[in-house]
């Protein structure tokens, strides 16, 4: 057991740090003005910059333009990005999900068409998996694709689609066999978002912003050459991709939560109640310490999972354990922040309403990317070997 970075890992980190210090945009963190085209252009240009520096698709094989980074190096990469307050990576779905899936299952044409464009930010991707009636039960999806000549004709609706409003392409799950058992009739299409019949509607969240979209497909025609993998094998292809993705979130998320925690500490030291510092209140101290230990334990848990994944090439259900941990941890963290900071934290004028946003946004943590109920099912059945629940 050695929790220090290896010399190789240190070198990786130092290289990226050095690159970041020279290439980070002046305006360190672009604020999310989603209606502003400049905002998105900024993100695309950041993606291009990363790519030019060789810092896009770091975990992809070198043969495909990646850097062949280990899971631990990838985690270091994400942690450094977050720590430097770099802009959001608009290509994250392309890099983390679509690219690896194309590498694993795509045709040569698909590889040469899409992979370079994912890396250089010229293709922004979104993923079309969830549907209004298929939430946890993704495989019950009903968006359908019917072959007409050498095109699939797609009809249906997707929901919770991040980046759809600016995406160039969509990795779309569709039903292609209507008689087969639900997991067996699904295929995976690569869909040009500029196709006729695609329309996007932003979905406003309880926190007031629109991080997600609904996407409607009406007689959208997709050339057969954009079928990814075998016909009706879409489920297997994407489930593997999803598991890969889940496991990779560790360091970036940690840095995000740590920023919340650090700001909480800062504010707790500054603010007083009837003349006593919030940070001196013994009850607040217990709550803050508990948040701290849970947060640091997330880092340790993540590192341990990464270390395991590094040994067994395919990530197992560790991702579910981490997801369950961080989603509920973050909810407790922001609950603590709201309790400690009290009235101030509920004001829109205090820290630009950041605490309200964080509090409300955190409710989505245990729903998005697999609800806590689903994660617990996966852990119970796939890790502990309990019988299927029904």
């Amino acid at each position, binding site marked *: 057991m050695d929790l220090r970075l290896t010399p190789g890992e240190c070198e990786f980190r130092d290289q990226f740090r050095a690159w970041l210090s020279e290439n980070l945009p002046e305006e360190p963190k672009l604020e999310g003005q989603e209606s502003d085209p400049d905002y998105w252009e900024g993100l695309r240009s950041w993606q291009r910059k990363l790519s030019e520096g060789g810092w896009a698709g770091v975990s992809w094989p070198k043969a495909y333009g990646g850097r062949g980074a280990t899971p631990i190096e990838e985690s270091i990469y994400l942690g450094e990005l977050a720590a430097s307050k770099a802009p959001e990576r608009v290509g994250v779905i392309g890099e983390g999900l679509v690219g690896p899936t194309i590498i694993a299952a795509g045709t040569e044409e698909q590889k040469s068409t899409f992979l370079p464009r994912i890396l250089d930010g010229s293709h922004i991707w979104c993923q079309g998996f969830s549907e209004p009636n298929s939430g946890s*039960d993704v495989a019950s999806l009903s968006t359908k694709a019917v072959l007409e000549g050498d095109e699939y004709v797609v009809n249906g609706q997707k929901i919770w689609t991040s980046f759809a409003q600016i995406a160039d392409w969509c990795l779309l799950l569709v039903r292609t066999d209507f008689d087969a058992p639900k997991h067996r009739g699904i295929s995976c299409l690569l869909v040009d978002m500029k196709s006729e019949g695609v329309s996007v509607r932003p979905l406003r969240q309880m926190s007031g912003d629109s991080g997600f979209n609904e996407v409607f497909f009406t007689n959208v025609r997709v050339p057969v050459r954009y079928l990814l993998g075998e016909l009706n094998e879409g489920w297997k292809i994407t489930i593997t991709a999803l598991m890969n993705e889940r496991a990779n979130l560790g360091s970036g998320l940690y840095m995000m939560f740590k920023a919340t925690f650090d700001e909480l500490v800062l504010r707790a030291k500054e603010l007083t109640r009837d003349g006593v510092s919030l940070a001196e209140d013994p009850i607040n101290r217990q709550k803050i310490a508990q948040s701290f230990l849970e947060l640091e334990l997330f880092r340790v848990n993540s590192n341990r999972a990464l270390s395991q994944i590094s040994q067994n090439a395919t990530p197992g259900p560790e991702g579910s354990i981490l997801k369950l941990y961080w989603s509920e941890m973050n909810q407790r963290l922001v609950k603590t922040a709201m309790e400690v900071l009290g*009235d101030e934290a509920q004001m*829109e004028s205090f820290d630009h309403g950041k605490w309200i946003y964080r509090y409300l946004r955190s409710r989505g943590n245990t729903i998005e990317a697999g609800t806590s109920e689903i994660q617990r099912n996966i852990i119970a059945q796939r890790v502990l070997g309990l019988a299927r629940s029904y």
Partner: protein
Amino acid sequence: MQFDLTKPQKLLQESARTLFRRRCSMGRVRELMESDSAHDPELWQEFVDQGWTGLVFPEEVDGLDLGMVELAALMEVMGEFCVPGPFLNHLSASVVLNELRNHDLARARLREAIAGESRIVVALHETESRWGLNGVRLALRREAGRITLEGSKSRVSGAVEADWILAAVRDDEELAVVLIPANQEGVTVKATPAIDPTRPMGEIHFDGVLITEDHVLGRGEAALGAFTRWLQVGTVMTCADLVGGMQWVLDATVEYAKSREQFGRPIGSYQMIQEQCADMLLWVESSRSAAYYAAWALDEGDPDTGRALSMAKAYCSDAGREVGNRGVQVHGGIGFTWEHDLHLYYKRAKASELLYGDATFHRELLAKLILDE
């Protein structure tokens, strides 16, 4: 021993529900919450016509002379419909006037308040003060025969569009109640948006505001008594409002769990969902018990009133938050959208958690009663 609402109390609730179904749909709630005060003059007039602005005040000032249980019953329904606007704060502020109604000005303002001619608000909080009366530092300045007020009150729920301000101030160290017209020179009221848009907050600045002696409605014991009653009534009202909101969340959640299907059957047939719904019910019903027990005790002047109030506020504050959390979780993505009404209740419960003191505050009050006597 009889815990149910009486027939007249149930009728009061039913007539409120009828009114709100007609005049306060969720669509209307959403319109109102876009404004600074969330105040609807026409709806307000209906409240007045129903006598609600005078619900708990004596007949001598044209009140209905009903009790705290009736008030809680009404507030529960307001919670169910997420009724926006300053009613809670107006009515609890009127309590201060009622306590001081031997003072002519207080009585006059109380009559106006009951008649719906003006809206009243209590201004207690100062920056970084706790709930409770110890944090009041804003003081009257008496100089050369003039009394002036200089400073601010913040986090005043219902401040915007209030006509009269009842400010908690120090007068030569003593706590005092000062009546100030909101439109007086030197008074500025600013909307300060917060998490709950249905009951907006404001900040009040006093810039050398001139106070006449007779506008100091009470000081010392009298002021303490009036504000204490205000805190008590406000606590009961907030708890009952929370109960109504929780009930709405529970009903919506159970309804959704029955109709939403995943993996070929209603999600409500899954034990992990059933568990959350069962816990929600436990919290809602326990909150209801606690809220009405507090209302009843306050009404009766029961010796346990202090405990009953803190017990209710501590419990309902926590339960309101947790019921909301489970509600969103069971609804999944749809419960997280702006479109769904759930978030309005969710935010209101979060604001109510702090109103009149949060759970930690009230637990410490309880600890004083249990451990320090």
